[in-house]
C-alpha cells in the first residue's frame, strides 16, 4: 500500500516539480527564427501601424486592447513572418508566426516567461496550426486541441495565430 501511495504522490507532484524547474525561457532567438522562415535571404524588416479598423479587428480577436501601435514584420512575395507578444496568464509569450499564401506555415514559441503552460512550445501542439486559415467568422478553419493545464497559453498562441493571419491579409490587400 505504502509504495503505491508514494508512487501516486510522486506522479501527482511531477508537473509541479517540472514547473519549478523553470522550463520557461528563451527557446529561439528572433534572428534564428526569421532565418529559418526565409532561408535564402532575410528581407528587411517593415513596420505596420495598427490603427483604425485593423486595430478594431485585432482587438476583437484578442479580446483586449492591443498593446503596440506599430508591429514589425518581414515580407517576401506571398510569405510574411510576424513576432508578436501575448499574455498567457500574467506574462507575455513571444510567438513567431510565418504565413504563406494566406495559410500558416509555422508557429514557434520563441520565449515563454511563466512557470506553467510551457508545453505549448512543443511541435505536437504548434504543428496543429500548419495550413490553418482564417474562416469566415475570423476563426481558424482548423480545430486546435488544447493541453490540459495549459489552457491560457493555448488560447494565447491561438489568438496570435489568428492575428498574424489577419495582419498578413491586411498587408496583402494593401500591397
Amino acid at each position: 500500500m505504502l509504495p503505491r501511495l508514494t508512487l501516486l504522490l510522486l506522479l501527482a507532484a511531477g508537473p509541479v516539480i517540472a514547473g519549478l524547474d523553470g522550463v520557461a525561457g528563451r527557446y529561439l532567438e528572433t534572428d534564428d527564427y526569421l532565418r529559418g522562415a526565409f532561408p535564402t535571404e532575410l528581407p528587411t524588416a517593415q513596420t505596420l501601424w495598427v490603427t483604425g479598423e485593423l486595430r478594431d479587428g485585432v482587438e476583437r480577436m484578442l479580446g483586449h486592447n492591443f498593446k503596440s501601435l506599430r508591429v514589425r514584420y518581414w515580407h517576401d512575395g506571398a510569405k510574411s513572418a510576424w513576432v508578436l507578444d501575448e499574455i498567457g496568464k500574467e506574462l507575455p509569450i513571444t510567438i513567431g508566426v510565418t504565413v504563406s499564401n494566406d495559410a500558416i506555415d509555422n508557429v514557434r514559441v520563441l520565449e515563454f516567461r511563466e512557470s506553467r503552460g510551457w508545453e505549448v512550445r512543443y511541435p505536437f501542439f504548434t504543428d496543429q496550426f500548419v495550413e490553418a486559415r482564417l474562416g469566415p467568422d475570423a476563426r481558424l478553419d482548423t480545430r486546435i486541441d488544447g493541453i490540459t493545464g495549459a489552457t491560457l497559453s493555448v488560447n494565447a498562441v491561438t489568438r496570435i495565430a489568428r492575428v498574424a493571419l489577419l495582419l498578413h491579409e491586411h498587408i496583402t490587400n494593401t500591397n
Partner: protein
Amino acid sequence: MNTSRTPINGNRRSGYWFRRGHRWIGVSLLFFVILLAVTGITLNHGDKLGLDRRFVSWSWVLNAYGIEMPSQLTSYADAGHRATLVGERLFIDGRDVDQRVSTLAGFVALGPMLLAAGENAVHLLTPGGDLVEVIELVGLPGPIDRVGRIGGQAVVQSAGSLLRSDDDIAVFTPWHDVATAEIQWSVSTPPTASELAVLELAYRGRGLTVERVLLDLHSGRILALPGTLLMDIVGVFLIVLGMSGLVISRSRNRRENGARNDKESGS
C-alpha cells in the same frame, strides 16, 4: 440502585459538556468561517472581478506590506519629458507605462515619439505613454551603453559601436561614418522633489493587488507566521466541529429512536 444511576448521570454530564463545547467552538469560529467563505468565494471569481488588476492604494496597508519605492533610480529628461526606471518598472512623466526593463541606458524625444533604451532593446512610446513598439536590437556587441539623437534620428552606442535609426525610428543600422560631436547624448539627471512624489505615488499604487491581500487574508499570512498558525488551528477546530456535530446528531437520533421504541412497546 445507586450503581445503575451513576453512569447515567455521568453520561448526561459528559454529553452536556460535549454539546456545550461544540456550541462554543461553533460560535468562536463564526468570524473565521465568514472570513474564509467570503474571501474564498471572491477569490474563486478573481479573474472575472479582475482582482489581479486592481491595486490597493491604502497607505497603511502598503506600509504594512513594506512596499516602498527603491532609493536607487535611473532617470533621464529630454524635451520636457522624463523617463525613470524604478526597480524594473519604467515610468514616463510619472506614469507606469507597463514596460519591464532591467536597465535604462538613456532617453531621447524624437519628434512625436519618445525612445527609452533598455539593455538590448529600445522602447518607443508616445508622449502619452502608449507603447508604439519595442525594437529588439539583434546582434549588438554588448549591452546598450547610451543613446542620443542626431537630427530626428536616434543613435545607440554599444561597446564602442554605433547604430543609427531611420527617420521613422523603425530600422537601426550600423553607423560607421560618424560625426560624434554632433550627437546629443542623453545624460542622466535626478528627478525633482515634486517628480519624486508623483513617482512614489505611482510606484506604490501599483505594488499590491487586491488578489494578494485576499489570498493573505484567506490563508492568515496577512499576520505573518502567527496568522498562518491561527488559520491552521481554525482548520483543526473546523474538523473537530464537524466531527462533534456528527456525534451529537447520531446520539440524538439514537435517543429519539429509543424513545420511539419505548413508546411503541409501551402502547
